[in-house]
């Protein structure tokens, strides 16, 4: 199999190619960008409402993919169910629009089956932190090399405006006519708590920043979580719209936040819901080994022990 151009993998997973090839690949992608963002946009017309934040997210993703420079057939883009989860179809990657809450397990199977693929996962807040919330802890502790983008709009848009796990306490919706009695999930703190090594937040209100964060997430060797404040124009609150976000958001860079500072990152994560920070909240300066690295080492160590498949039943000879 030809060596794939994958700056991220070549930094961490040496089995993907020789050093010379790797260096050449990186140089090539720096010198001559192989792709434009448009190469990653499909001609499928989104079903989203005009003005939906998700339009910005798909643009940011395609820009990041162009910057990464891998051809679309080497990318698998997995999603669950919700407005946001239509997104793989709006790109030219291999897409898999799966079932509600299960994008992460399916994406992990894809990455484990073919570690050379670049695997992106998209979810909404419901997909990611309600019906599928249980999977988040496990993908983090496995540290499987995926980039997980959650389009967090604090509402269930596809089913027309019910409470989401990130809706504020007291929020009135058709399923909470007298106001929500629950505290919202804090996605940033949630993933920090389970030990995620890359945690970022962005908004389509800052397209360039969002594309940069996504690119950094893809390049990060291991599981990367990106929360995107992607407003719902139809069912969202006024203060959640792009215009309000622009006024409110603060880049973490401008706060002189050091992404290597885990304690500070955790403190800042607590402000979810009151402040809107954008940028990389936490990036582990010494990323733990990925699951894929462990698998690869095990394959190398054990492959000599394989008996030919035709002789597999010989192990049942009694002794």
């Amino acid at each position, binding site marked *: 199999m030809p060596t794939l151009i994958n700056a991220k993998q070549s930094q961490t997973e040496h089995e993907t190619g020789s050093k010379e090839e790797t260096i050449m690949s990186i140089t090539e992608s720096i010198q001559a960008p192989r792709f434009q963002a448009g190469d990653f946009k499909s001609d499928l017309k989104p079903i989203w409402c005009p003005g939906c934040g998700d339009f910005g997210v798909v643009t940011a993703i395609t820009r990041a993919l162009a910057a990464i420079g891998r051809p679309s057939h080497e990318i698998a883009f997995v999603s669950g169910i919700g407005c946001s989860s239509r997104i793989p*179809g709006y790109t030219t990657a291999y*897409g898999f*629009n799966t079932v509600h809450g299960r994008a992460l397990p*399916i994406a992990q*199977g894809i990455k*484990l089956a*073919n570690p050379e693929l670049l695997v992106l996962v998209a979810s909404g807040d419901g997909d990611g932190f309600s019906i599928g919330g249980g999977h988040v802890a496990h993908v983090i502790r496995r540290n499987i090399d995926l980039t997980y983008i959650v389009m967090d709009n604090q509402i269930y848009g596809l089913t027309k405006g019910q409470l989401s796990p990130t809706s504020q306490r007291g929020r009135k919706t058709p399923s909470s006519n007298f106001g929500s009695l629950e505290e919202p999930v804090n996605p940033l703190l949630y993933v920090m708590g389970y030990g995620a090594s890359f945690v970022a937040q962005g908004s389509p209100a800052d397209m360039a920043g969002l594309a940069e964060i996504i690119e950094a997430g893809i390049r990060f060797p291991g599981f990367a979580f990106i929360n995107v404040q992607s407003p719902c124009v139809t069912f969202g609150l006024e203060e959640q719209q792009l215009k309000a976000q622009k006024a409110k958001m603060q880049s973490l860079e401008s706060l002189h936040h050091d992404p290597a500072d885990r304690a500070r990152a955790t403190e800042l994560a607590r402000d979810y819901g009151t402040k809107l920070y954008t940028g990389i909240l936490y990036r582990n300066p010494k990323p733990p080994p990925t699951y894929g690295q462990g698998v690869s080492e095990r394959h190398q160590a054990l492959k000599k022990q394989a008996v030919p498949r035709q002789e597999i039943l010989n192990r*049942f000879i009694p002794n």
Partner: protein
Amino acid sequence: MREDLIIGIAGSGGDGVVSAGESLITAAALEGYHAILTKSFGSQIRGGEASCRLRLSTRPVLSPTGPLDVAVVLNWDDFRRFGGELPVQPATMVIYESNTGVLPDKLPLEGVTPVVTFSVPITQLAQTHAGTDKAKNIVALGLLAGWFGIGRESVVAGIRKKFGKKGATVVEGNVRAFQAGLEFAELHPVKEERKMKAPQPGQKMKLLTDGNDMCAAAALFAGCTFFGGYPITPSTEIMQFLDREIWKYGGTVLQAEDEIAGVGAAVGASFAGKKAMTATSGPGMSLKTEMLGLASIAELPLVCINVQRGGPSTGMPTKAEQADLFQAAFSAHGDCLRPVLAPTSVADTFGITVEAFNLAEYYQTPVIVLSDQDIAQRKETIDPIDTAKCQLVERRRPTETELANFARFKLSESGISPISHPGMAGGNYLASGIEHNELGRPTASGEMHAQMNEKRFRKFNSLKNRRDLFVVEGDPNAPIGLVSWGSVAGAALEALRLAQAEGLHAKLLVPKLLYPVAEQVYQDFFASVRRGLFIEQSFQGQLYRLVRMYVDLPPQVKAFAKSGSNPIQPAEVLERLRELAVALQNHANSHQREAVAD
């Protein structure tokens, strides 16, 4: 001398009952006997009561069931807890531990008085010769070797191997314990007719394994490189076997956080182009259902093993039942068809598992294999399998021409479309659980939905012609017909053989493809049938009801269905067959009388 011997052994958890059974069946396999070993435990995780039953024969054994010829009782309370699993009859030879204080004519068995009983100081012999109670099971093996002539050499060889690491003292102690048992038996001879015949000449050493290990080995043989699953009794050994082996072949086992994630990862691996599987039992199947529907509409190959146990809900985790057929056939929303296969034995599990991968790849579909606790966890001697004769099928990859204008879900004549996977240039498409057109693009068109549904059913048309997935035994023109599947088919076949020996005119159909229902196969089988029975280990008789949805069965075809746990015995099937023969004869007589009256 006898050609068939059923031994039951029961004791407490630490008595080494199962280990004794394992030693015996290993000896049997080495000597060329046919044998099945089943184990049964109380619900305690460690300790508690344990039992095993070994059926040994000079001919192929079809089922592990039947009343005991020999009962070895280390503890009466433990033995009695197994009730119907270890049935004693007057002809059963009972060997029991003397220190239980039971008198030979006062055995604590209800409604049965065995004629031949031996009170043996098993513990005392173990202590005297091996210096420990732990050798009780070895004494028992010596008794069995002495009385029935099984494994005189191979058990000793096994002892040397097993205890070798513990040093010469332990080895010699155990060998002495075995000899003590042997000598006790020789001092108290039994009649010649109770002894076991030597294996038929030419019988070679056999393979020895259980259904779960066989299933996992078959998956590896078929080229499976991904397993996603979650531990659940009685299927866990499949994952454990694969975890020991799959890495050597560049594959991966993922013990997921739950059943859904396990099957989800397998669906993902299949999307990525690999042969993938999951294995579980009933409760896990309930959780995996949504993912199976996804694999159906996204047309992704997937093998899902369900090692059935008693249900519903937690039910009876360590006991076999055949009550998940409806679930296998129907548990998904929407119109959806997926093949359901069932092996009938440990040996059969190899071919059926390989077939499941072949069907999954060929039809781009999830395939469910219904094993059960009995097959999965019993040990069986197996004649060598010629793997060179097994064909492997790969999914239909797109050609260069097809990739130029790729339609992943092309409405082809066969219903089978070319399938690409990430990494394949030009094959990019959107797989989805949402209805889609030929290109994979989401659609809300009713016409397209109808066409795609039709395609997803049409592709299975050829499957119903797979006559090789059905076995018919007996005279094809017989007026009495039995149908049985899975582990129960062995008991049904044995009953058929007994019935034929009595001169009954009967036949048996064993479907290994349970769904879709191959209408023509059943119609052909029932053409000659005037009295019939579906023999099943479920309360409802699920195959009987399933087949009736598709086939107009003759009115006198009924179900003989029993809830799980206590396996269906060949003798009870034989009893039903005799009743059918009598009913048929009465019917014929009454017709004759009518004819005379006319």
